[in-house]
């Protein structure tokens, strides 16, 4: 230590000398911050660019327009429009006949190849149309059908004409037929009606996210209904009611520990408790929601407690001062003031739950599920699982569909976060 006493002049000189250095330090700090933020923004932009540039084409696909003769005898043999009757009908054959009348395939083999041009969902499409509008029977109407995924990839240019025939998935003959259809102006590139309203499918041209989207909604609602009341109640109890002793301390420490447990562990617990002991079925959103609720509980409890702690003691004292009971203080004053913080915590917890696949793996929700779940006890899957599964399928067209599904998931997440921001702004009170 230098204990020499310095004069004020010396002191101010010293300060003057060091000012430039300190300013430079300040500026450097600012610069580092800016670099960090611009790097993050840069990565975000790259991510968005790569997803959107690949994904937007996933919302579109190629269709072929065919003239369909809606012959009731053949489409609906029993005449009662029931699922069974339509299933027995010959809708696929009618579509093939209409296609053949345009491209004129010669011989059995050529016909067999030509049949694959139109997606195998053609009969379902016709069944849906006549169910919605039985007056179609007896008319000949132009109907758009999705093209098979190989043809779609060809029209997009992923399968190239120059590639030798043996190495590409579609033969020269098919290309000839496609050219013919194109000349007649029957092929169009439009917004896909499968991506949003279709369900999981092995045929990429018919695959959509409806099933997974609804599964996600159901799972999240179960999760919210369990996690929010439990989490808030726990937080209130620990902050306002419980005495501070060894036991509550122990509980607190463990809640914090739970927040750091890897999510797959909750899945194993769900399998052991809900499925093995309670005997609940696999793959249902109810179990999924319960597992995710366990996972989000710590997040909600911790943020709710922070929100309750942020309510100034003066509010409580004032309430007690005019004779409010403990219950009245909590429910009339503390909770309304802490609500924005609690809601923000909950929504962030939900957003985290929305993106989870690992805990769902154990309870059978990582699966190929075609039927759209109608209730929380029907088998269902969720959006991230759908993305994960599509990413693995061999067919080319799933690449675009995967990106499209990611865009939907991102949209879902952003709107949830926007809701959190809105609620906070709306309910926030300053004191």
């Amino acid at each position, binding site marked *: 230590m230098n204990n020499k006493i310095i004069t004020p002049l010396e002191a101010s000189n010293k300060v003057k000398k060091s000012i430039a250095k300190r300013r430079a330090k300040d500026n450097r700090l600012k610069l580092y911050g800016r670099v960090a933020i611009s790097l993050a923004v840069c990565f975000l932009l790259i991510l968005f660019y790569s997803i959107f540039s690949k994904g937007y084409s996933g919302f579109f696909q190629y269709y072929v327009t065919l003239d369909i003769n809606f012959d009731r005898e053949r489409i609906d043999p029993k005449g009662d429009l*029931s*699922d*069974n009757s339509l*299933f027995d009908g010959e809708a696929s054959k009618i579509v093939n006949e209409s296609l053949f009348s345009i491209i004129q395939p010669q011989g059995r083999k050529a016909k*067999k190849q030509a049949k*694959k041009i139109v997606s*195998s969902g053609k*009969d*379902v499409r016709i069944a849906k149309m006549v169910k919605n509008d039985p007056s179609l029977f007896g008319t000949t109407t132009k109907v758009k059908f999705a093209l098979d995924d190989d043809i779609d990839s060809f029209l997009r240019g992923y*399968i*190239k004409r120059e*590639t030798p025939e043996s*190495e*590409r*998935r579609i033969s020269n003959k098919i290309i000839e037929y496609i050219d013919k259809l194109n000349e007649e102006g029957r092929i169009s590139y439009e917004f896909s009606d499968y991506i949003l309203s279709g369900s999981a*499918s*092995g*045929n990429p041209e018919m695959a959509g996210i409806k099933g997974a989207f609804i599964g996600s909604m159901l799972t999240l609602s179960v999760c919210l209904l369990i996690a929010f009341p439990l989490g808030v109640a726990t937080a209130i109890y620990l902050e306002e009611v419980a005495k501070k002793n060894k036991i509550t301390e122990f509980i607190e420490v463990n809640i914090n520990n739970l927040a750091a447990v890897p999510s797959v562990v909750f899945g194993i617990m769900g399998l052991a408790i809900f*499925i*093995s002991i*309670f*005997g*609940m*079925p*696999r*793959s*249902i959103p*109810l179990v999924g929601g319960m597992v995710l609720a366990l996972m989000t509980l710590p997040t909600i409890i911790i943020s709710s407690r922070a929100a309750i702690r942020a309510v100034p003691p003066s509010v409580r004292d004032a309430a007690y001062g005019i004779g409010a009971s403990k219950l009245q203080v909590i429910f009339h004053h503390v909770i309304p003031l802490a609500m924005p913080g609690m809601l923000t915590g909950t929504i962030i917890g939900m957003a985290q739950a929305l993106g989870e696949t690992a805990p769902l*793996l154990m309870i*059978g929700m*990582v*699966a*190929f*599920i*075609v*039927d759209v779940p109608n209730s929380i*006890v*029907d*088998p269902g899957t969720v959006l991230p699982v759908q993305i994960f*599964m599509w*990413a*693995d*399928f*061999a*067919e*080319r067209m799933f690449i675009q569909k995967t990106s499209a599904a990611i865009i939907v998931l991102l949209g879902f997440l952003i709107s949830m976060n926007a809701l959190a921001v809105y609620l906070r702004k709306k309910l926030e009170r300053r004191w």
Partner: protein
Amino acid sequence: MKKTIFMAGIISGLVVTSVAQARDTLSLAGSSTVLPFARIIAEQLGKNPNFKTPVVESGGSSVGKKGVCDGVGTKFIDIGNASSRMKSKELAYCEKNGVKLTEIKVGYDGIVVANSKKGIPLNISKADLGKALTAEIPVNGKWVKNPYKKWSDINPDLPDIAIRVYGPPTTSGTRASYAEMVNQKGYCAKDKEAKAASVARGDKKGKKCRAMRTDGVFIEAGEQDNLIVQKLNEDTSAYGIFGFSYLDQNSDTLQGAVISKTAPTFENIAGNNYSVSRALYYYVKHQHIGVVPGMKEYMAEWTKHWGDEGALSDAGMIPMPKAERAKYKAAMTNLPVLTAADLKK
């Protein structure tokens, strides 16, 4: 307070019991190689308005074989998919849990070693391929860690580049079949030196050779075959091990290695000329037939599509010869119980 807790207990009890009733959706799990084919069949069955579409989970062959054997009751899966045959150990686990199974073979799948078309095509014998990836190889009669760094170290005719192969993890039936067919049967049981050394360490059949290298030359890329395909497109000096259907879908960018003078083509695998191919199975739990609706219909649906020109061969599965198809079609109605003796055949 006590009352509310009591009521809450009753309500949650009711919810749990009402949910834990019989399942009306078929539940399948297992091999990711069988999954694309099983999902085609599941979807076809779901078109029938009388049945719900079965739920098909992935997870790897071991998950399918273990899952179906876990026990009887609707909380367990009904059918396990596998791309490698059940082993007697796995069957013993089944019997311990009182599960009776019928084995249905559905077709074949070739395992290919492929790389990008921009890379050097591989033309390799099975023994050399085994030498490249087996964890330990004999040098002067002693087992040492596999020393080969480049393909050309094994055989001067092979490309002069570092050995780097992406492949599936241990839970995968593709991996198990590959290790058995290439490392064990193609190399340790064929190569004179390796055979002698195997016998010397009391491993007559060369089963110890099934271990793959763990020194970074063989890279586990997860159950996702598509990931391997993408990596090969980016890394043109690497090779990958996966099912034939992925090569079939990507035939414009990838080339399959010629193994023991046979190229991995549909015709060669179907004609049994290509030696690295395995059968695909599913295992049906007897106790669930008639309990979960659609089991029999699901099985029958396979017979409609597993032919030479059916939807399954279009998706890359190699069909069985006619006689075998007839045999397993009969098994679907007779439901012979799988025994340890059957597995030895």
